[in-house]
């Protein structure tokens, strides 16, 4: 598996990897039976801006790196902006992923969306 240096960096030194006790949006995607499970936590402030974001991931190197990367991309964005982060954005920011690992970046984007949906449900 040829991971880029950036993937390896985010894997070895994951950013924002922790459980967030005071999150107001939590999304979990994946299936541990398939070897991946990802939880994204967000704290959205009154201006609809993602003020804090973190993750917990059970999965391969790419799954951990994409989780880490998406927290960096999303922090400071409004919820609207964050929803536009695509699978490709994550992979591109990591200088690419091996073809068989592209679905791991789906996981990260899906996880963030799930967290945002959960936040919106909580705040209706």
């Amino acid at each position, binding site marked *: *598996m040829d*991971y880029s240096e950036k993937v*390896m960096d985010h*894997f*070895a030194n*994951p950013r924002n*990897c922790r459980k967030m006790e005071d999150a107001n949006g939590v999304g*979990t995607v994946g299936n*541990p*039976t*398939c*070897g*991946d*499970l*990802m*939880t994204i936590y967000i704290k959205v402030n009154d201006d609809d801006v993602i003020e804090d974001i973190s993750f*917990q*991931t*059970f*999965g*391969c*190197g*790419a*799954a*951990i790196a994409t989780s880490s990367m998406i927290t960096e991309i999303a922090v400071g964005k409004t919820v609207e902006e964050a929803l536009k982060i695509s699978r490709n954005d994550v992979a591109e920011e990591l200088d690419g992923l091996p073809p*068989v690992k592209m*679905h791991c970046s789906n996981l990260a984007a899906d996880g963030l969306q799930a967290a945002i949906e959960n936040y919106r449900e909580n705040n209706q």
Partner: protein
Amino acid sequence: MYLDNSATTQVSEEVFEEMKPYFTEEFGNPSTLYKIGRESKKALDQARQRVADAINAKPEEIIFTGGGSESDNLAIKGIAFKFLNQGKHIITTEFEHPAVKETLAYLESLDFKVTYLPVYENGIIKVEDLKEAITDDTILITIMHGNNEIGTIQPIEEIGEIAREKGIIFHTDAVQTFGKIEVDVEKLNVNLLSLSSHKINGPKGVGALYIKKGTRVIPLIHGGGQERGIRAGTENVAGIVGFGKACELASEQLEEHHEKLSAIRDELIEKVLGTIPESYVNGDMEQRLPNLVNFRFKAIEGESLILLLDAQGYQASTGSACSSNKLEASPVLTALGLDPVDVHGSLRISLAPESDAFDVDEFVETLAGAVSRLREMSPLWNQ
């Protein structure tokens, strides 16, 4: 520190020295008449004798191939196509190597019927199951000697006796056991037995199939009369010479290596289970290879573990889906009936005779660190 010797091994210096002349100097085609050709022929003969000696066979029972996978294909298709009109039932286990498994899947597409014996939690078949599976239509039993992922060893002698009584041809894949434990074709009661060179410090791309005198197969590679007409193609002389030497060395050192490796393995198991919570060993604790152990750690995924270990200088492997190009969890571990999630947390450590310098304490410390780091990240770990 390379800890993935079940995947492949380093060619030893002694083996390479023996191969060297057969590239640029003794390059003759063994089928030719003149001196340089006859020298190649002699080298082939010597290698064949060495392989035969290592498994208690006769040299004319050894057919050189391009590797373990080819040997498995030659054995299984060779018998299936030979008996095409006499029977279509084959018996195997649930957790064979892909070279056997995929070959059987192909035969199923040609209307062969295959029975897959369960291997239970300990990774060993029950002889009773085998007896029950045999029908009048059964032409072949193919059951691996040692499993490549968890190292459990099947009761080949007993299976061989049953096969012989019933007059059914019996093949075993001994790629992982050869050079690690005794492999004696007479004791094992087999008709066919597959070997591969690169698992015993020989070169890649060479293997052999033992074919008991009297057992006939349809060739996989038709053509010139090489290898008694059973495997055509100009012989890979250098590779075969290397394989022969590797066999000789492996046999000579079998007991010594067995003792050394199983001691390291036992120490490793004891320390890992003692240090890392929720860690387990996959497969039977008695009937197992001396050089291989497969661990299971709750709540973590194998590929990430392997990457962390690699970053610390340890190369090992996993049966986790996410490490292969197939993204499908290890069928071997799945066959043990493990919870699918647990299948992903596996780690295979396989040692080589040259693993003397392996410091078990240092490794276990690194491993424990990596496991707890991944558990901290894991949403499945709540302890």
